[in-house]
C-alpha cells in the first residue's frame, strides 16, 4: 500500500518537474537578437531567418531592424530610406488586424506567445516615422493616410477615444496638406485645430489638475463616496475638455465644459473605468454598507446607486470651487494665464513653421525601456529614458541643424530630417542653431494615456497562479499531516497487537490524504500551465524626442 502511494508521489513530483521546465525564454534574450539589442542592424538573410523561424516575432524583428538602421545607417542613401520605409510599412500593415482588447491593461499585457504588434506608443511612433520617410520622398498622399492612422492608433486604446494628444502628428499632417496640391481647406483647418488642442492639452493640464488637487486637499468631506467619484470624474473631464473643447474656449468655459461632460463619464464609469472604480470606490462602498448595517448585496448596490445619483451635483460643486480659486488665488491664476499664453503662442509658432516649404525635424535620445518585475515577471514597467520629459509640457531648446534638404546624422544615433516641399529653396550644407519644440515625448506617451497613468500589471494570471500555489501548499501540508495521523494509528494498532480491523480508520484517513494529494497536484499543474509573465518584447531603439524647428 505504502509502495503504491510512494509511486503516486514520485509520478506527481516528476510531472511537476516536467511542467516547471516548460517555461519560455524572453524573446529579447535569444542570441540572434544580440546585435539588435546593441543597436546594430542584422544582415538581411539573418533577419529573414528570424522571421521565418518565428512568424509571431516578425513585426518585432522588422521594427528593431528599422530603428537600428535609423540609428546607424547612411540615411542620405535612397536605398537605406527605402529599406527603412519597407520595414516600417510591413509593421504598420499588421496593426490593422489588432483586435480591440477588453480594457487597456489587457491590451498592454500581450504575452510572449502572441503575434507582436507593439504597445500603443510603439505603433504610433512607427506609423509617424513611416510618414516622415514618405514625406521625404514626396509621397504626401500616403503620408497623410498614415498620419490619420497614427491619430486613430493613438486614440484607439484610450479609454475614451478623444484623438491624439500629440501635436507632432497634427503638425506633420498640416505640413503635408499644405504641400499637397488641392488639399481640402477643411482638412487643413482640422489639422490646425488638432495642433492647438493637443498643445493646450499638454500645457494646461498640470496647472488645472494642480487646482483640483488643492481643492481636494481642503475638502470637508473627502471620503464621501459621491465626492470621491466626483473628483475622479472631474480629472477625466478636465483631460477630455482640454482635448475636445473649442479652441476659443477660455478657462471658465473649459471648466464649465468639464462639468457638463461629467454625466457622460458617470455613465461610462462601469464600462470604461471598471478597474479604477473597483480599486478606489468599491471597498469604500462595502465598508460604508457595514456602517449602515446594509452589508448585503442589495445594500451595497443601493449605496452605489445613491453615490452615482449625486455625483453630478458634487462635480458642479467642484467646478464652482475651481472657479472661485481661480479668481482669488492670484498665484494659481497667474500660472494658468501664463500657460494659456504659452499654449497660444506655441501653437501659432508650430503652425507658422508647418506652413513653410521646409520642415525641419530632429530625433534625439533613446526611448523608454521595459523592465519586468514580480515573482512571475508579471509586472511590465516602462522605464522612462534619462533624457525624458516627465511632465506634461512642451520643452523648447536650440538645436544646431544642417538645413540642407534630406537626412543628416546627429549625435548619438540621432538624425535630423529636413523635409522640402516642391517649392523649397535648396540650401547648401550649412548648420544653423534652430529654436525647436519637443512635439513628441515618447516616455511620457508610453506611460500615460491622455494624461492618466495606466495599469502596468498583468493582474489576472499572476493572481491565479499565486492562488493555485497557495492552495497547493495548504493541500500538501494537509496531506502530509493526514498521512502522519494514519501512520500513528497503524503504529498504535501494532503496539497494542490488534489485528487489521484496527487499521480501518488509518486507511480511511490515508484515502482522504491521497485524494488531497491528487487534487493539490492537479491545481498546482493547472497553475504552472498558465504563464503570467509579461511580454518582454519592446522596441528600445526608438527615439525619445521628436523636435520641430519653430
Amino acid at each position: 500500500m505504502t509502495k503504491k502511494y510512494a509511486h503516486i508521489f514520485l509520478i506527481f513530483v516528476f510531472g511537476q518537474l516536467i511542467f516547471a521546465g516548460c517555461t519560455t525564454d524572453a524573446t529579447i534574450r535569444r542570441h540572434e537578437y544580440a546585435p539588435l539589442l546593441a543597436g546594430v542592424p542584422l544582415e538581411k538573410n539573418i533577419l529573414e531567418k528570424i522571421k521565418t523561424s518565428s512568424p509571431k516575432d516578425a513585426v518585432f524583428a522588422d521594427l528593431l531592424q528599422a530603428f537600428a538602421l535609423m540609428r546607424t545607417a547612411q540615411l542620405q542613401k535612397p536605398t537605406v530610406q527605402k529599406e527603412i520605409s519597407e520595414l516600417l510599412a510591413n509593421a504598420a500593415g499588421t496593426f490593422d488586424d489588432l483586435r480591440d482588447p477588453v480594457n487597456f491593461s489587457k491590451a498592454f499585457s500581450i504575452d510572449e506567445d502572441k503575434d507582436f504588434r507593439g504597445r500603443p506608443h510603439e505603433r504610433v511612433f512607427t506609423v509617424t516615422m513611416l510618414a516622415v520617410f514618405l514625406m521625404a520622398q514626396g509621397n504626401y498622399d500616403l503620408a497623410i493616410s498614415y498620419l490619420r492612422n497614427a491619430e486613430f492608433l493613438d486614440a484607439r486604446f484610450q479609454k475614451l477615444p478623444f484623438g491624439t494628444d500629440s501635436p507632432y502628428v497634427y503638425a506633420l499632417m498640416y505640413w503635408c496638406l499644405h504641400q499637397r496640391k488641392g488639399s481640402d481647406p477643411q482638412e487643413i483647418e482640422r489639422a490646425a485645430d488638432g495642433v492647438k488642442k493637443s498643445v493646450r492639452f499638454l500645457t494646461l493640464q498640470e496647472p488645472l489638475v494642480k487646482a483640483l488637487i488643492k481643492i481636494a486637499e481642503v475638502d470637508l468631506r473627502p471620503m464621501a463616496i459621491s465626492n470621491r467619484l466626483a473628483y475622479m470624474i472631474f480629472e477625466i473631464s478636465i483631460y477630455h475638455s482640454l482635448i475636445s473643447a473649442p479652441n476659443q474656449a477660455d478657462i471658465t468655459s473649459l471648466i464649465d465644459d468639464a462639468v457638463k461632460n461629467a454625466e457622460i463619464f458617470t455613465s461610462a464609469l462601469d464600462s470604461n473605468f471598471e478597474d479604477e472604480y473597483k480599486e478606489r470606490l468599491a471597498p469604500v462602498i462595502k465598508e460604508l454598507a457595514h456602517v449602515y448595517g446594509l452589508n448585503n448585496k442589495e445594500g451595497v448596490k443601493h449605496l452605489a446607486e445613491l453615490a452615482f445619483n449625486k455625483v453630478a451635483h458634487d462635480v458642479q460643486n467642484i467646478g464652482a470651487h475651481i472657479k472661485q480659486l481661480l479668481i482669488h488665488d492670484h498665484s494659481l491664476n497667474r500660472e494658468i494665464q501664463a500657460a494659456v499664453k504659452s499654449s497660444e503662442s506655441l501653437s501659432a509658432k508650430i503652425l507658422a513653421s508647418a506652413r513653410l516649404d521646409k520642415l525641419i525635424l530632429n530625433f534625439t535620445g533613446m526611448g523608454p525601456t521595459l523592465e519586468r518585475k514580480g515573482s512571475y515577471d508579471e509586472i511590465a514597467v516602462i522605464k522612462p529614458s534619462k533624457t525624458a520629459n516627465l511632465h506634461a509640457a512642451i520643452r523648447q531648446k536650440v538645436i544646431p541643424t544642417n538645413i540642407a534638404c534630406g537626412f543628416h546624422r546627429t549625435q548619438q544615433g540621432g538624425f535630423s530630417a529636413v523635409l522640402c516641399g516642391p517649392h523649397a529653396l535648396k540650401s547648401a550644407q550649412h548648420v544653423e542653431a534652430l529654436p525647436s519644440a519637443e512635439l513628441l515625448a515618447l516616455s511620457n506617451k508610453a506611460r500615460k494615456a491622455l494624461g492618466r497613468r495606466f495599469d502596468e500589471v498583468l493582474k489576472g494570471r499572476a493572481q491565479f497562479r499565486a492562488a493555485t500555489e497557495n492552495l497547493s501548499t495548504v493541500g500538501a501540508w494537509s496531506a502530509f499531516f493526514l498521512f502522519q495521523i494514519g501512520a500513528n494509528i497503524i503504529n498504535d494498532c501494532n503496539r497494542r497487537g490488534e489485528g487489521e480491523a484496527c487499521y480501518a480508520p488509518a486507511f480511511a484517513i490515508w484515502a482522504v490524504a491521497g485524494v488531497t494529494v491528487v487534487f493539490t497536484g492537479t491545481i498546482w499543474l493547472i497553475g504552472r500551465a498558465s504563464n503570467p509573465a509579461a511580454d518582454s518584447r519592446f522596441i528600445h531603439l526608438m527615439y525619445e524626442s521628436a523636435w520641430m524647428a519653430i
Partner: protein
Amino acid sequence: MSAKIFIAACVVFLSNCMSLKDAGRAYFNPRKNYVGVQNPQEVIQRIENNKKIRHIIYGSLKEDKIIECIFLRNQIYVASLMSLSKEDKRELKRVSEIMEQAYQFDDQDFLQACDQVKNSHVGRLFGEIQNNYFERS
C-alpha cells in the same frame, strides 16, 4: 472539557463586545486601516496646511470646527464597525444615520448634523475622547 470550551467561548464573546467609550477611542487607536476615514494626523495636517485655500472656498469656517466635525464623523464611522452591546449599537446607529447621511450628502448638511450630534449622549462622550486626544498630543 466542555465547560472549559464554554468559558473560553464566553471570554471571546465578551472581549468582542466593547463599551461605547472604547468604540469612540477606536478611531484614534485603530486595529486596522479603514478605507472610509483618514487618520487623525492626516486630517489635522490637511486642514492646517491649506488655510488660504480653505478660506477662499469655505469662508470664515474655523479650522477647529472642521476638525471637530470630521473627527466626530470618523469616530462614529469606526465605532459603527465595532461589536457593541445591543443598546449601544442602537444609540450609535441613530447618530450614525444622522451624521453619515449628511456627510455623504452635502457640506452644509454635514455641519448641521455635526451640531445636532454633538449635543447627543454619543456626541458628548466622543467629544471628551477628542479632548483627551488633543491633550495627549
